[in-house]
């Protein structure tokens, strides 16, 4: 059973349109949803949560329609949004009490352990938290009710590298259990690059690709050569290029360029930027 299945998801606004999105997150996997600001990541997540209504398409979470038994569904889903919206006057301890009376499977010990590990004080008011601390509280809450699926929307942006690393480590540990899955959206790709099993590129409401991360990194590579050499290549092999006064650089499909050509490995971020620019 897949943790998340999205088919033909469409939502139109006046100046933006999420266009027939298809996405499958197999159980036990981590999927990184990469896209620039305004690409549609948050819209997608809001549609998953049923915060906004879809124009078309289906969404199933752990096999169930996301519009049915919504409250029950949310018991098993941990969500962290980029704005952790707890009222400013609440303290960590109060949040814990509220959550204890909200979730069936609330584990207060786990919650306090997370806060302790993250050095989040129990008695400080939320309005006095730094951004990193707010995020850590959000993550602690999301992980303390035995969720099967974690959805994180830009949960690492604005965090310093040390905290980001802590968070990535926690997410890594979360998926040691094969019943646990994660959908994480971000425009900071470096966090996702190592962690993810699947990568999806979202750009202006359209899904550019959704593949196994390893397969992606093997399929594409970068070549550096003279512009003439570049022109000699099969057009379908070249996914994006950049020419300067000193030569040309191109993203290519490894299996479509001549053998012996020196193809360097590519990073996910570079791939995304090239693909977006090429599309323009």
């Amino acid at each position: 059973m897949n943790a998340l299945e999205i088919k033909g998801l469409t939502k139109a606004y006046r100046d933006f349109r999420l266009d027939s999105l298809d996405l499958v997150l197999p159980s036990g996997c981590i999927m990184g949803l990469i896209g620039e600001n305004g690409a549609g990541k948050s819209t997608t997540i809001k549609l998953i949560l049923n915060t906004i209504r879809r124009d078309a398409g289906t969404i199933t979470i752990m096999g169930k329609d996301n519009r049915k038994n919504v409250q029950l569904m949310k018991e098993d889903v941990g969500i962290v949004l980029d704005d952790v919206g707890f009222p400013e006057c609440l303290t960590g301890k109060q949040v814990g009490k509220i959550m204890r009376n909200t979730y069936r499977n609330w584990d207060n010990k786990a919650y306090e352990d997370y806060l302790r590990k993250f050095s989040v004080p129990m008695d400080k008011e939320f309005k006095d938290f730094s951004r990193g601390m707010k995020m850590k509280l959000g993550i602690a809450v999301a992980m303390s009710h035995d969720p099967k699926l974690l959805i994180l929307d830009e949960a690492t942006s604005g965090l310093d590298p040390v905290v980001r690393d802590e968070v990535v480590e926690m997410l890594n540990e979360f998926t040691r259990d094969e019943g646990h899955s994660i959908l994480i959206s971000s425009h900071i790709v470096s966090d996702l690059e190592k962690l993810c099993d699947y990568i999806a590129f979202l750009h202006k409401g359209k899904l550019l690709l959704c593949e196994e991360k390893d397969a992606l990194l093997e399929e594409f590579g970068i070549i550096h050569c003279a512009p003439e050499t570049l022109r000699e290549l099969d057009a379908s092999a070249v996914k994006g290029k950049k020419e300067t006064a000193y030569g040309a650089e191109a993203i290519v499909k490894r299996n479509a360029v001549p053998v012996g050509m020196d193809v360097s490995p590519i990073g996910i971020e570079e791939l995304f930027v090239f693909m977006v620019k090429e599309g323009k």
Partner: protein
Amino acid sequence: MNVFIDNKRGAPIYDQIYSQIKAQIINGELKEDEALPSIRNLAKDLRISVITTKRAYDELEREGFIYTLPAKGCFVAPKNVELLREESLKKIEEYMQKIAQLAVSCGLSKEEVVEMFMMNWEE
């Protein structure tokens, strides 16, 4: 078991894992019937994708270096002399191909290469 991953350069990660485990099996660092970390735990310990480690293990199993017991995990297969010999043969062939490529690129003829080889063998 020691596995090091080079992210920046180098072969695809699954290949690095596969090669390193294979080498350790061949040189005896990993003993027969020794338990390997599960696909999932290895991935999480190395902070890489489960799909990657699965691929490495699948490859190792396909070539007979490890075996899987359902619900128990993966273990090092007993040393297979045939297998080891085959490994060495494969490596020799790899090197030979490289030699041939290099020779062609600097204009050596087949005879010249064989001559070089004979000289090196005798030493």
